[in-house]
């Protein structure tokens, strides 16, 4: 019984706390910049307001434009069922995919939103779609390599197994392969979520925005779903980053409800740490010029590559 409950709890945690995470980040950035900033509950207010409104859809838009928010949201919900968020043992649905499969589901969401952006033939949408696809084409090889670094350390690409391996031995934790993978993955978290130095999440100049310009055409309920999905993405990637790479300890046991609740608290605490790192980067770096982004992602790729070749000599657990 309890695994099923935990499974539901895990997805609910993602759904419910993702807006909060985004709100806290926005507030923290504002405070560091000596502004007052919006309330940390602002995302919930936004969602409530948008969900109540009707939406205006261009008459040139096809069905893709309509279904894209739903596909994106359900993709992230799917991912939330398979990765370790609150428990250290696989939950019933975790057999669906490993980390690489999870990455495919994530990119499905990105793909459908890019398609929707093109669908309305709005110039800014096309611009955003092309930029995100370009960034994605650079980020995804690096992402796959990062998964290989964890796989090289733990001899598995199952996130739970990786979590166990790294949590189990401090020696494994300080392996160059693992640390390089950690850095590379953090850079990718920033890139995938359109944070500084890739993109400015609070930017409002259409010509320079990347992520946001894809969804300018959305309004009302659909826009709410899209926003929610993107907050979930940030939450999910941060949680994977913390649970698999940085602090693999403190997850709850999968057999008791209490374990699940403890895991929930743990993951929220870890997100505070991750959020602090993101806020520091957000406030101390400038956004990169567009063509420097390739170098940023290239560096991430390089870290992961060196990590993998190092594992070839130093070895993971097997050696």
């Amino acid at each position, binding site marked *: 019984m309890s695994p099923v409950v935990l499974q539901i709890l895990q997805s609910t945690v993602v759904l419910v706390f993702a807006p909060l995470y985004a709100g806290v980040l926005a507030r923290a950035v504002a405070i560091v910049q000596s502004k007052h900033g919006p309330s940390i509950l602002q995302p919930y207010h936004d969602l409530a307001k948008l969900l109540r409104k009707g939406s205006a859809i261009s008459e040139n838009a096809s069905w893709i434009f309509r279904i894209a928010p739903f596909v994106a949201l359900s993709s992230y919900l799917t991912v939330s069922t398979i990765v370790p968020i609150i428990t250290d043992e696989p939950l019933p649905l975790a057999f669906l995919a490993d980390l690489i499969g999870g990455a495919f589901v994530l990119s499905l969401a990105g793909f459908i939103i890019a398609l929707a952006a093109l669908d309305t033939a709005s110039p800014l949408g096309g611009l955003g779609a092309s930029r995100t696809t370009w960034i994605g084409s650079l980020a995804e090889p690096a992402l796959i390599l990062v998964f290989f670094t964890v796989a090289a350390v733990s001899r598995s690409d199952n996130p739970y197994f990786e979590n166990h391996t790294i949590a189990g031995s401090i020696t494994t934790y300080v*392996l*160059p392969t693992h*640390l*390089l993978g950690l850095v590379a993955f953090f850079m990718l978290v920033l890139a995938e979520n359109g944070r500084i130095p890739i993109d400015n999440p609070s930017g409002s100049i259409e010509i320079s925005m990347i992520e946001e310009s894809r969804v300018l055409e959305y309004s009302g309920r659909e826009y709410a779903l899209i926003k929610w999905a993107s907050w979930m993405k940030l939450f999910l990637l941060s949680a994977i980053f913390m649970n698999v790479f940085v602090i693999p300890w403190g997850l709850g046991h999968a057999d008791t409800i209490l374990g699940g609740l403890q895991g929930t608290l743990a993951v929220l605490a870890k997100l505070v740490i991750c959020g602090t790192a993101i806020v520091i980067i957000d406030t101390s770096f400038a956004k990169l010029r567009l063509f420097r982004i390739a170098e940023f992602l*290239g560096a991430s*790729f390089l870290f992961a590559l060196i990590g993998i070749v*190092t594992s070839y*000599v*130093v070895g993971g657990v097997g050696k």
Partner: protein
Amino acid sequence: MITLSEGVLLDLLSVAILLLTFACLGSKLFDRYVAYYALQSIILSAAIALVAHHLGAWDLWALAVLTFLIKGIGIPVIARHYLIIRLELKRDVAISTGISTSLIIGAVLTAFAYFAINPSTLPSGLLATSPVPLSNAVVLLGGLCMVVRRNTVAQLIGWLIVENGVFLGAITLVATFPFIVEAGIFLDLVAGVLIMLTFVSGLAHRLATTDASELRELRE
């Protein structure tokens, strides 16, 4: 357990040295070249000290101190003072290959260095194994720095990085090198740097540039 953690630390230091080589390869500012080289040398001296601690060898301690003083402080300060500032070098424009391309070539060279060293042929009992291929990678990358950069100062720094790579390999692979040889290698390095510094400033004097692509008197 102690040995193991020392080995892990050595692995990490060597990875840091490799990353700094990449940083140098991916940079365009002379200040940065020298800074990265200095940092790399300081990390190298830490690595030597680690091996010295592990083996309890006094000559390696001496080498670590010398590395720190000469490579970590002396050469960077001299290079900064006599080359970068006096020749007013700021941004390196004489790079034959784009940064991204040379980074990709560098990545390929790194991978090559790893696969050229078959780990099963490495002897057991080494403090750590990864510095061996890493040092080869640093040697290759330093060579790449020398090839893609046309400025003589940049080439000089590339050569210094190559030397660091060799030292890294030497302390792990053959930490027990006879002292006279170690001392000789170090002496050669210092003499080489001094002579090269003289040449670079001589060339700068004569040609009013340190850009080796301007060196085309000898094309036939």
